[in-house]
């Protein structure tokens, strides 16, 4: 019943929407970032963060701080908030919230599999995993030798199982097909999430389809750029694009045959929303593309808070917090390595 969410939304979703909007008001502002960028040491950063909502998470850290500790604690806060929301949520919001974590789950799977391939210690790898994407038997991923085993042993129990249908092969794992697996999984995940949001209907479907379409298009561009000059065939590349989004289907055709960054640019500039992103970049440059995409994403995520009675605020909040943690990590790294001139290179202001 599109347009009538206001009548019934608050019965189940009202409390959590209030909560998430409260969390959102705790995001760091431009003034905070300006102050953080002036910090001389990591202790200064800690001191500044202790005045924000991160305070309780950092106050008990002994003094010689590391960037990893800061990031870890900030992530912990995000995870705590997520868990709080998840325990309070009812259907279909709880499923929606779970969907948000699947992306991390895919990343974790890939991380562990790649790590084992290069004979890294499992415990060490587990520490690097994003806590939102953890599942019970994640450590057993190390046992698997090929995709089929991976699926049969471990992933069959996880929500990722359905996404695997396209990439079950008996080939041994190597870097290339792990990367293909990641993108196939991500494609399936995005499509599934998209379908789920469409099923929810209303403002959620409207806003989420916009956000997810952007995500799908961004991935398509990234896949294209990263696969230029590799042995990935055009047909295979085409298969990794998600079957929705602004670029689907004609843009995908064009992207699939791109051979260098300028051709990508040519293909993308036909789409008005992406024109502004590419117009910021000079020809032949792809370094700043990530930041431009992040900025565009943050803008869209912030806009989703303008409307009420929909679930996209939860997705937007999680993404914004992750962006904030990336910002903090960059700032801390710059401060720790005395590269303060580069501090503004990668920080995306949220407000």
């Amino acid at each position, binding site marked *: 019943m599109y347009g009538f969410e206001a009548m019934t939304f608050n019965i189940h979703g009202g409390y959590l929407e209030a909560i998430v909007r409260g969390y959102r008001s705790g995001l760091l502002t431009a003034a905070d970032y300006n102050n953080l960028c002036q910090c001389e040491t990591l202790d200064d950063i800690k001191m500044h963060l202790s005045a924000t909502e991160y305070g309780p998470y950092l106050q008990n850290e*002994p003094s010689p701080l590391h960037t990893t500790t800061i990031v870890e604690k900030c992530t912990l806060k995000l995870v705590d908030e997520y868990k709080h929301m998840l325990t309070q949520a009812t259907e279909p919001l709880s499923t929606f919230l779970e969907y948000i974590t699947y992306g991390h789950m895919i990343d974790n799977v890939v991380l562990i599999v790649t790590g084992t391939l290069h004979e890294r210690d*499992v415990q060490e790898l587990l520490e690097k995993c994003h806590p939102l994407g953890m599942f019970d*038997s994640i450590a057993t991923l190390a*046992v698997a030798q090929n995709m089929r085993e991976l699926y049969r042993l471990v992933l069959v129990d996880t929500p990722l199982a359905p996404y695997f249908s396209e990439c079950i092969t008996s080939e041994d794992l190597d870097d290339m097909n792990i990367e293909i697996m990641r993108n196939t999984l991500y494609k399936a995940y995005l499509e599934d999430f998209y379908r789920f949001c469409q099923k929810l209907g209303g403002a959620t479907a409207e806003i989420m389809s916009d956000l997810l379409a952007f995500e799908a298009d961004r991935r398509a561009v990234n896949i294209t750029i990263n696969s230029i000059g590799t042995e990935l065939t055009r047909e295979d590349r085409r298969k990794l694009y998600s079957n929705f989004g602004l670029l689907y289907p004609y843009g995908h055709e064009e992207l699939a045959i791109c051979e260098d960054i300028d051709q990508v640019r040519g293909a993308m500039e036909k789409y008005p929303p992406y024109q502004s992103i590419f117009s910021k970049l000079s020809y032949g440059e792809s370094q700043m593309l990530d930041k431009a995409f992040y900025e565009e994403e943050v803008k869209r995520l912030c806009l989703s808070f303008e409307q009420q009675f929909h679930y996209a605020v939860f997705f937007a909040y999680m993404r914004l917090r992750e962006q904030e943690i990336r910002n903090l990590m960059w700032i801390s790294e710059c401060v720790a390595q005395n590269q303060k001139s580069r501090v503004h290179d990668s920080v995306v202001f949220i407000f």
Partner: protein
Amino acid sequence: MEYIDRLPSMDLMRSEKMMLAQLILPVESAHRAVSYLGQLGLLQFRDLNDDKSPFQRTFVNQVKRCAEMSRKLRFFKDQIHKAGLMLSPHPASETDIELEELEAGLAEHEHELIEMNHNCEKLQKTYNELLEFKMVLQKAGDFLMPDGNHSAAQDTELDENVHINSDYADSASLLEPMRHGYGYMQPGMSDQFGVKFVSGVICKSKALRFERMLFRTTRGNMLFNQAPADDPIVDLASNEMVENTVFMVFFSGEQARKKIHKICEAFGANCYPVPEDSIKRRQITRDVLSRLSELETTLDAGLRHRDAALSSIGFQLTKWMNMVRREKAIYDTLNMLNFDVTKKCLVGEGWCPIFAKTMVIFILDIFHNIADSQVGIIFHVMDSNESPPTFFRTNHFTNAYQEIVDAYGVAKYQEANPAVYTVITFPFLFAVMFGDWGHGICLLLGALVLIAREKRLGSQKLGSFMEMLFGGRYVLLLMSLFSIYCGVIYNEFFSVPFHIFGSSAYKCRDATCSKARTIGLIKVGDTYPFGVDPSWRGSRSELPFLNSLKMKMSILFGVSQMNLGIIISYFNARFFNNSIDIKYQFVPQMIFLNSLFGYLSLLIIIKWCTGSQADLYHVMIYMFLSPFEDLGENKLFWGQGVLQVILLLVAVIAVPWMLFPKPFILKRLHTERFQGRAYGILGTSDMYSDDEPDSARHPHGEEEFNFSEVFVHQMIHSIEFVLGAVSNTASYLRLWALSLAHSELSTVFYEKVLLLAWGYNNFMIHLVGLAVFAFATAFILLMMETLSAFLHALRLHWVEFQNKFYSGDGYKFKPFSFASLTDEDD
């Protein structure tokens, strides 16, 4: 007018006079000077470095050090708590130590403690491993030597195994009779069939998933045996007891072994090699047991050592925490100060009540003598355009009332404080709604208990609800006293009337009293001397009588309280020398309110005194509808018709009076000031720049005078007052409504529960009736009714009373004081 000026000043009526003081402290003694001021607690520093972020301030390093120290202290507290020791509440009275010393000491203690924890953990880990090993060894014996009973419930595969096993054993026994038995044959079997096993311990909650994973990896070609471990083991990460399961996996093939080991690793299962030979096993078990007992003693000794260290820390922890908290507060305050030009002095500004000036100077003098520094501390008064903070000196008793007023808004500097009147009017209006001396006594007992235990309750942490009750104990006391008083007037004791002040004035017409409810009673004696005659209870006209009484009474209270509010606005205007407000706001407001509702009150009183039958509704309504009509039988006194016309005229005139003149006069004043401005501003700004270069008075531009805005503002005010006069008077009728509801509710509980139960001749029913009555009284009447009457009284004060005069846009005086620092960051 002079008489009013000569009245003694009330402390609570106006907030303390404040002054802005400037302190110039030599850098080297600033820290100690500030600590002295913190002990005094009468100076509120202004933040002069508002534009700087926290880590750009002067004393940021010290603040960081304090934060680090308090982190260590929190760590100690946490450790002490974990070890189950108590903090000693009374800190050891040792000589004061320096902060640097403390810092070093804390670092040392922390290092020591961490090392001890580390050692303990290592020992504990070894201990756990041994314990697990022991359990595995014990259970492994059962797995390797399964007897029929044990494995009956196991899956058939096992039985098959056993079967093969025993067959083999039979044949083998011929060769090696000494090694007869299933267990011994297992190794032989494993050699022959390539069956190997891995044994270990896994957390119970993971066991099922572990088994499933093993099954999947080996495609079912394995045998999983498990048994619950006997004792739970302390998990080092969470410090909790964890139930474990001992498992033993039989499998074949090298590939499977690798996988199983990986899975064990992934699940965090600890694997222990178990020798297949039972003699060896027994030997190892003995070994393990002896090492376990050794370790146990070491572990105990380590724990004892750590506990001793912790308790010695705990002895002083409270003191250290106070000290660090103070230091942090001092440095936070120092961060608010500015360096002067020479960088040798710190300059601070702060608000200070004028009465405290001598104290501050005295303290600084003492400090100067002690410190013996060459440069003294300079303390001088500055003038400021900023509105000073509001500071009322309250005591235990008045504090709660001041809180009630502050909850609405903190008074503007030196504004009349409604809390003075609230002390009495609040509990009184509450009691009007809660009049029952039985309930009043219950409340009184509660309040007395709280007051009697004041010392003990005050020193401990209470829950939020108790905290509220305890904070309002004196409010509760007065509320209960007044409700006893009102209850005696209403003559209700749990809704039952009593003949306290002699007998009733009324009697039945005949001995049987059969017609009492229909025809009524006859009056025989004098009027009942105090309160409501007990004979009204249960009579036919009880409700009409009580309603009429309470309704009129509420209007009288309301009109008098609103008048009080307007009169206070007069004192406010007088205090701030605002004659416009007196002439064009106070006077017409007084006239308007009293010509309508003051007149109504007069009619009520006349009606009570004369016993007239006049209909007051009629009088009031027709006063507006047809003012010149004859009043007829509703006439109460001579000249009433003329008076009404005059009053109506005056009221009508009062409305434009309060609406129009004030904005026009303000406009005229503004233009006058604007013409003479050139000289005035020039003179003053010159003067300031001469003698006080860093004065807090910033020359501010002439404010824009927006006539339409002022006019609209005034219009809103006037309309609000005129409408408010009607609606506020009506609002006071809640006194009647709540009081009626309270008495009816208690009557219902008394008659329909207690009396009904007493009608039966059964002890059990009596008991049940009494219990229901007691619960209803306690929870509905004493708790919920109290709360609702409290809220209504609160509303009457915040809205009906305070909107007549109270602006409430000030801010509170928050002095830098060590006393207010306690436990705020815990």
